[in-house]
């Protein structure tokens, strides 16, 4: 116990204390620009948020972004992992290339997509124009109907490799005997996939769903670099809302309250996934 004490002290200082302190200030009206006026407001920061239309709009956008992103990641990662589970020439090279997006830092990824989507000199416009799909350069991120999907696309590109690896691990763990037995029983390829492959992949899927949902709900970098919540409020998601409230408005009390609501929502969703998918494992 004595030997663990230093670690406990460090953990207490860098993890436990900040968490508890942020919970504490969420019950106060803490605004850095009014350092001498920080009254205790109890649950007001929380109740104000729950009655704020802008907050619920941000929640709705976050849910939409997460649903689109996580669904796309799950489907693409499944297809890619099934491909990489086959023996073919160049499989190792393909596996290595696949890891590149995962290795790129989030901000670098965001800057790269900002160039791709640029309406004046972006690579996407250049490509589509040269292929004669468009007759003039298009506005991408500035089009509020497309913005959230375009950001989701950049997010999916970055996240698919990790999801693929997690699913590939599940695939590799399926005993070959199961497939042999299924073949002997006359199961078709589709039947083998539905009755052997998919059930065995559930642990991997659960991990992917929990991890990617958490990442999507809390994601900030792409919104910060690509749109700053715009145009209008088209990409004003919850993480951006928290950033603006905390670091631009310097309202640490309500910002902390918002962060706690986000943390509770993330925890609840993870619990839901574990209860629904985990029960069947």
């Amino acid at each position: 116990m004595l030997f663990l004490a230093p670690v406990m002290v460090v953990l207490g200082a860098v993890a436990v204390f900040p968490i508890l302190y942020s919970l504490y200030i969420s019950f106060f009206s803490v605004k850095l620009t009014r350092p001498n006026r920080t009254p205790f407001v109890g649950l007001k920061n929380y109740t104000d948020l729950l009655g704020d239309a802008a907050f619920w709009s941000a929640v709705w956008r976050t849910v939409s972004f997460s649903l689109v992103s996580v669904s796309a990641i799950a489907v693409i990662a499944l297809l890619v992992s099934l491909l990489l589970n086959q023996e073919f020439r160049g499989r190792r090279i393909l596996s290595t290339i696949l890891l590149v997006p995962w290795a790129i830092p989030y901000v670098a990824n965001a800057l790269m997509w900002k160039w791709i989507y640029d309406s004046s000199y972006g690579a996407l416009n250049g490509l589509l124009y040269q292929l004669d799909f468009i007759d003039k350069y298009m506005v991408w991120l500035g089009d509020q109907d497309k913005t959230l999907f375009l950001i989701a696309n950049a997010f999916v590109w970055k996240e698919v490799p990790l999801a693929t690896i997690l699913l590939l691990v599940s695939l590799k763990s399926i005993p070959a005997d199961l497939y042999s037995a299924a073949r002997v029983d006359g199961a078709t390829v589709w039947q083998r996939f539905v009755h052997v492959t998919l059930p065995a992949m559930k642990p991997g899927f659960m991990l992917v769903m929990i991890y990617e949902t958490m990442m999507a709900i809390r994601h900030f970098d792409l919104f910060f670099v690509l749109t700053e919540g715009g145009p209008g409020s088209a990409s004003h998601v919850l993480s951006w809302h928290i950033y603006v409230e905390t670091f631009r408005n310097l309202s640490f009390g309500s910002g902390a309250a918002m962060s706690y609501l986000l943390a509770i929502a993330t925890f609840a969703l993870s619990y839901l996934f574990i209860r629904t998918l985990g029960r069947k494992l």
Partner: protein
Amino acid sequence: MLKDKTRHLGRRDFLRYSAAGAGALMAPGLVRQARAETATLTMHTWSAAVDTVQSHLSAFTKETGIPVNYGNSPWAQYREGMVAKFVGGAPLDAMWVSDAWLPEWAEAGWIAPVDEFDSLMKYNAEAEDFCTQSMTYDGRQYGLTYYTDYMAFLYDEAKLKEAGFDAPPTSWDELVEQSLVMKEKGISDYPMMLAMAQESWLIEFISTLVYSHGGRLVDDSGSAVMQDEKEGAVEALQWVVDAVNKHKIVSPACVETGELAGLKSFAAGNHAFAMVAKYRLRMLNDPAQSQIAGNVKQAMMPQGPNGSHATVGWMRFHGMSAQAAQDKARAESTAKLIEWFGGKSDGAYTFQKLLFLDIGAGFGVKPLFEDQEVRAAYDSYGDVDMIQAQQALALKKDTVTPWFGEWNDTNGSAWQSAILGNVDAAGAVKKSADLWNELKDSY
């Protein structure tokens, strides 16, 4: 011999050693006193013209004997970083301040007025009025200028001639007419460049459009008047909405175009007209950086039907921290430092001139317009009389209040929403005005 000397401690030796001992005992006190007399100051700026600042600081220390610890951080994180420093009580004496943050920092008691220092106040006589006003909050002045600039209207003379026009537009309606001709002749798809992305520049673009349409966002009492159909911001926003959606002379991508991206697009020859910070004129006429170098001219800001050629001016200044002001000696040293940068050093506005010659940053002191070196530099890429005439019509941002930061994001979103067609101009401005009044009441 040595043994003899140490063995016999004579009267002279005794006095010598006693004096040395007493000196050693007093030394820390003397050092402390010496330190107090030349206390090291701390100065923090954003990361601009760092080498120029450092060399000017070295000259200050050489001249006054006052050492200065210098730190800088990127503009994008500067406000948040400084607030953290203020709240955390980090040592700080002088810093650069944006006019946008003055009320917020003054209300919080983080920065101190400098108007009790006559050595600083004497420079107001030679400063532009809007600069002095921009450094003043609640009747107190908080610093001396570091740099100032205004939003300028620039045009590509070659495109104008190609379209058959002899002179640039003087009104926003005339700009539409000229732009439509350019579109028809295939000179430019979107002749007017407007950068309306959500970033720190947006309020400057918005204020310019409003002022030149003869409107105000906020009146002198601090109440929102932007929602006023006649004298507010609605007419200006409607012009932008029409320019994007009806006349199609401004790209719909303007809502995702930041100041820098817009500047590059103008420099690439994609537009005939642009609203950019005046100091960009130098870069735009530099062949190494611009494809339309030599063709970029400045004209007075076009005016709306009930407006004028007014534009928005902004400024950054050298301020003094409240902690420095609490100690008289430290405050006086800090005032000397502020004067060295924002006033005259060696009898001239050296720092402002250096910044101008180095990076083209505008200055807020009128005598520099008469400086031959400055005029020669301006003449190499612009019209110094035009520059001076437009600067004389610059107005300070009327929205600069303690709640500006909280209102600014919502205002930007409201303008973008109108441009995107989600809400009409009057509705967007009303939303912004409602938040303004709500915040004003809460403060």
